[in-house]
């Protein structure tokens, strides 16, 4: 981007917003918006606090656990739907419903079923991630070129070898599903913890809000945004490395 002939560095639009935030904060119009400089100062506070470290630990554990279950169940479900037409007919509607349903509304139900703790958050991550993984896997399995399967049969491939070929051939779609599932899982872990609100970042958010520590509150929001963005970027990089043959399939 250039302005009056000068090349502006990347993210310079952010600076404009930051300045605007600082001004509004300094005017003390709203309790909700402390000046940006205060938020930055609070950032150090939040990062070094032991409760933040603990929140991150719990968040990581519930995220990884929920996602791991979602991967296993989602890919298995996708294969089932992709390979067995009857299963597809029975399940497709439900999977699509859950994919687009506002799952946050179900979190209170999970709380009743799984208690006010990590299990509920794990289930929330699972529910956010699993459906897109299943649907993308299904699409991948269904889009395999029939001649690749005929090829493996004609050269005498065993059942296991044929399954391996199906898996590899569907891998680009499966990985796209995994990437979307991972990103949705981040939403799941935050929403789950916010609603349970006595563990992880959810507990921190309630703590800051109840004590009117708005600078800390915003610092935590910024941290979570940055973490989620960095995470999505890492997954996207990883996906690019295997993308080369997705575009080259014939």
């Amino acid at each position, binding site marked *: 981007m250039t302005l009056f002939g000068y090349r502006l560095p990347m993210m310079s639009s952010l600076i404009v917003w930051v300045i605007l935030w600082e001004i509004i904060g300094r005017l003390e119009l709203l309790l909700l918006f402390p000046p940006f400089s205060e938020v930055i100062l609070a950032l150090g506070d939040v990062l070094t606090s032991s409760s933040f470290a603990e929140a991150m630990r719990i968040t990581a554990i519930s995220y990884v656990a929920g996602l791991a279950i979602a991967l296993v169940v989602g890919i298995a479900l996708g294969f089932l739907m992709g390979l067995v037409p009857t299963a597809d007919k029975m399940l497709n509607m439900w999977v699509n419903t859950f994919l687009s349903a506002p799952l946050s509304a179900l979190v209170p139900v999970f709380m009743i079923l799984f208690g006010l703790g990590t299990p509920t958050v794990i289930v929330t991550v699972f529910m956010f991630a699993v459906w897109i993984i299943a649907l993308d896997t299904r699409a991948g399995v269904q889009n395999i*070129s029939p*001649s*690749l399967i*005929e*090829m*493996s*049969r*004609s*050269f*005498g*491939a*065993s059942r296991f*070898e044929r399954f391996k*070929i199906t898996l*590899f*051939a569907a*891998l680009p779609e499966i990985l796209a599903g995994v990437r979307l599932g991972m990103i949705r899982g981040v939403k799941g872990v935050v929403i789950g913890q916010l609603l349970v609100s006595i563990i992880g970042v959810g507990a921190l958010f309630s703590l800051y809000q109840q004590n009117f520590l708005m600078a800390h509150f915003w610092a935590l929001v910024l941290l979570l945004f940055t973490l989620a963005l960095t995470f999505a970027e890492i997954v996207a990089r990883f996906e690019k490395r295997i993308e*080369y*043959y997705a*575009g*080259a*399939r*014939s």
Partner: protein
Amino acid sequence: MTVALAADNTAERSVPKPTNPIIEVRNVSKVYGGAVHALDKINLSFETGHLTSLLGPSGCGKTTLLKIVAGLLQPTDGEILVKGKKVTGPGPERAFVFQDFALMPWASVLQNAAFGLKMQGVGKAERLEKARHYIGEVGLAGFEEKYPHELSGGMRQRVGLARALAVDADVLLMDEPFSAVDEQTRRKFQEDLIRLREVENKTFLFVTHSIEEAVYVSDRIVMLSPRPGRISEIIDPDIPDGISPDELRRNGTYLDTVEEIWRSIRKYVE
């Protein structure tokens, strides 16, 4: 082209029955969905060591017949014998070359060419050596470590051919192998196929919809007519031995045979 035949240029031609057939098609019918008669009581045999083309307009069941011989499709009725044994599924004495190449995009040229051997349980060192040999044979030496998407269509089909050759099957079943490559590559391919036949002692079954291609490469052409798929005519192109590709394309018998086949096929096109 070794088959000699009275070329009297009349529609009533008789062709000799194979004396040493490797494949026998007996009374084979294929009905799709209870209504579409793709093949109707086909009786046919293929001579060992010959290249036979199945030629016909689209919908005549030529690919269906080839896939039944391959064991990839089950006939509704009738049976196939390969070397005297009834076909129940794919077998190591038959190798298939696919119209759309059917290469594994995640595997290198070498791994793709060695796939059939791997499925047969051949040890790694041996199968890679064999695959390397046939990659050279089809003119792809130096491309062993490339991936399919780095190759042109013609080169991809050469990998498919190397894969089929490497398993050392007696019969090579080729389903319109050159239809997805451009015209120049196609001509080169046909010439290579003829040369390959002199090196490899194999029987070829070749499905094509190109009359020129069939006349150029075949010992025998089996013409099928559509709906229901039946044998309409069998022709042995009487093309002189040892003729160069350039001479052949201007050869009178070659041109006459192409014309004759066109005349008998055109009624299905119009």
